[in-house]
């Protein structure tokens, strides 16, 4: 048998892992049978996602944080499984959760276009996210580092990496020894962090609760 290098093993394993995650997502328990669309992206696409996130960083600190880390993820051969679906109801539950009394009213309602096109049927969103969670569970069993990102879904939808969907979610996976999706302290300096904390929770550093300064 020929010798296979560690890098090759990891990359090959990653390809198979993403395929298995797609299978787990497809066979996940769901409420109905919505058409869930899937696609997988790799490091090059992460660079595009990072560019998109940078563009909207001004209006969303969440995209700001994720955009900075996507650039690093692109260098580390990170992959993501994207899942999305059309916003319309295929369930005929008439449950009212979306704010419309019947499914027909929701399906006829005017579409509001944005990062995500709304209004969405609750059960379509549940089914897509249950599929995403099943994919994440599969990644977890295989020992991959994993996190579910709405930001990946939104920016991949904008970059057209997943088509014919109104909303999407991304399951990021990585084979790095350290989990790159959590504890991302390096994207903030200590001063930046202290400033943000003081801004967001000014009462925390006060001497007395309710004291007038």
């Amino acid at each position, binding site marked *: 048998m020929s010798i296979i290098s560690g890098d090759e093993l990891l990359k090959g394993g990653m390809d198979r892992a993403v395929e298995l995650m797609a299978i787990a997502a497809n066979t996940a328990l769901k409420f109905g049978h919505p058409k869930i669309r899937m696609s997988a992206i790799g490091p090059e696409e992460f660079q595009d996602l990072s560019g998109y996130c940078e563009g909207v960083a001004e209006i969303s600190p969440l995209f700001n944080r994720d955009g900075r880390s996507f650039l690093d993820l692109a260098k580390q051969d990170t992959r993501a499984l994207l899942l999305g679906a059309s916003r319309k109801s295929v369930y005929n*539950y008439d449950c*009212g959760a*979306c*704010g*419309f009394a019947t499914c027909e009213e929701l399906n006829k309602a005017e579409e509001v276009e944005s990062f995500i096109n709304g209004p969405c049927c609750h059960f379509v969103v*549940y089914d897509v996210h249950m599929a995403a969670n099943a994919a994440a569970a599969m990644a977890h069993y295989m020992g991959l580092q994993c996190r579910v990102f709405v930001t990946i879904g939104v920016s991949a939808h904008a970059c057209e990496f997943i088509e014919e969907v109104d909303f999407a979610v991304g399951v990021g996976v990585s084979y790095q020894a350290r989990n790159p999706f959590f504890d991302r302290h390096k994207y903030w300096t200590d001063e930046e962090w202290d400033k943000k904390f003081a801004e967001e929770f000014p009462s925390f550093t006060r001497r007395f609760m309710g004291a007038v300064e």
Partner: protein
Amino acid sequence: MERKMREYEERRLESVKLASQLLLASATTSPRVGGIDEISIHVLDSRDAIEDLAICIEKMADDNPRWDFFRSDAVQVRDADVVMIMADRRSGHDPMDSNCNLCGNLLCDAWRDAERVPDAPSVAFQGPFCLMRSMNLAYALNGAVTLARQLGIDHAIKMSVGVAALRMDLLPYRCGIALGFMASVTEKNPFKDLPKKWAEYNNETLSNRLIGRLFPTFRSIYS
């Protein structure tokens, strides 16, 4: 019942109660959007509580012509050994403030002012709810499903269970939306292979009709 069979029956019910505790743990530790706690999980493991729920679901089937499937749901609830209800106590009144547009309102402030679906018997949940929050329900459900698959426990998810639990006031105050998870430890999965008209022809109705009603008549005529 034979002593050994009674013992087996008791152990079987114990096992499903133990499993429900583990399923609750898995559902609780599944991811949450933004790491914010909002899902609580309520377990019904007594026959009486499950029967009350099934009766409520059966009654609701008349409330909306689209809810005919609630009748078959009620039969499945009766067949379940444990019913777990995932309740979302935040998404009805406290949006994520991420302006995500999943609900069709570009801004969360617009969602706050949005008109709610009026209370009526044909309405299950008085939406709109914050979808970015309530997708945590999907994570909680799948947390339980994933472990149930691992443990080899038969399971199903039902919207009708959540509605019934809400109407029966089994859930925390200000909880507006809930979904149900059912688990069963039996030799035949009670949630699969459901014949047509399952609400009419199931184990209970067949036993009531054949053994309770027809056979005594047969017996009194032919003896």
